[in-house]
C-alpha cells in the first residue's frame, strides 16, 4: 500500500513532519507544499534523505520559489499537475495539517 504524504507546515513550528516521517515507508512519496517548503533544509529531511534514500521527497516548485527556498539535489521539484498525477499513482493520501 503506497501512500502519498502531503506536508503543509514548517517543521520549525509544528510536529507534523516528524510524525509523518515516523510512519512513512520507503515505497511512499512525501510532497512538501505551502509552508512545508521551508523544510527542504530541515535536519529531519536531511537525515531522512541519507537514511531512507528510497523514500521519494518532492517539493512544489512554485511554492518553494515564492519563498526563495533553493531545493537540494536529493529533492525533486514538481508542478501542481505532477501532484495531481501522484494522487492517482498512490493508493492513499495523507494530508498533514
Amino acid at each position, binding site marked *: 500500500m503506497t501512500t502519498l504524504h502531503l506536508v503543509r507546515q514548517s517543521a520549525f513550528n509544528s510536529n507534523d513532519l516528524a510524525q509523518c516521517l515516523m510512519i512513512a515507508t520507503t515505497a511512499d512519496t512525501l510532497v512538501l507544499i505551502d*509552508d512545508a517548503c*521551508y523544510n527542504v533544509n530541515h535536519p529531519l529531511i536531511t537525515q531522512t534523505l541519507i537514511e531512507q534514500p528510497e523514500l521519494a521527497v518532492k517539493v512544489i516548485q512554485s511554492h518553494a520559489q*515564492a*519563498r*526563495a527556498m533553493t531545493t537540494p539535489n536529493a529533492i525533486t521539484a514538481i508542478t501542481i499537475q505532477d501532484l495531481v498525477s501522484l494522487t492517482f499513482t498512490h493508493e492513499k493520501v495523507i494530508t498533514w495539517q
Partner: protein
Amino acid sequence: MAAFTEQETSEVAKTAEILNTTKTLALINSKAPFANTHGKDSLDVALIFASFEQVVSLFFQGDGVYQLIDQQDGSLISVKDYLKTFSAFEFYDIEDIYVCQQSLVERKLSNSFHIENVQVLTAKDFALQLSQHKHVLRF
C-alpha cells in the same frame, strides 16, 4: 517643600533619562510570511503606530525570520506581496529592526535580507533589547 539636594536632582535626571530612552512598543514577528496573515497584520500595526510618531521596534524570531529573506515572490502563489512595503520602514522612521541569530542558524539562512539596517543579535542581546520596551505584541 524642601529643595532637592544636588544628588537627588542628579538621580531624578537619570531616572528621567531612562524613562525617555525606554522604547515604547515592540512587535515580535514569529510566523512565516505567506500561509497566514500574521506578518501583514504586524506590518499594519507598525506603520499605524509610526504614522502617529510612536516609537516602534521590530523583532524577528523563529519562522518570522523568513519574512526578511531576499528573492521572495508571492505572486507565484497568488499572494499579495506585503514584504515589499518593508522598504518603507526608513520613511516611517522605524529604525530598530532586530533578528535572532539562533533562528537564522537553525534554518541555515544567510544574513542577506531584502531590507537594510537589520541588526542580527545573539539570543541574549535579542532578549536584552526586547526587555527595554514597555509594551510587546506578538504576531
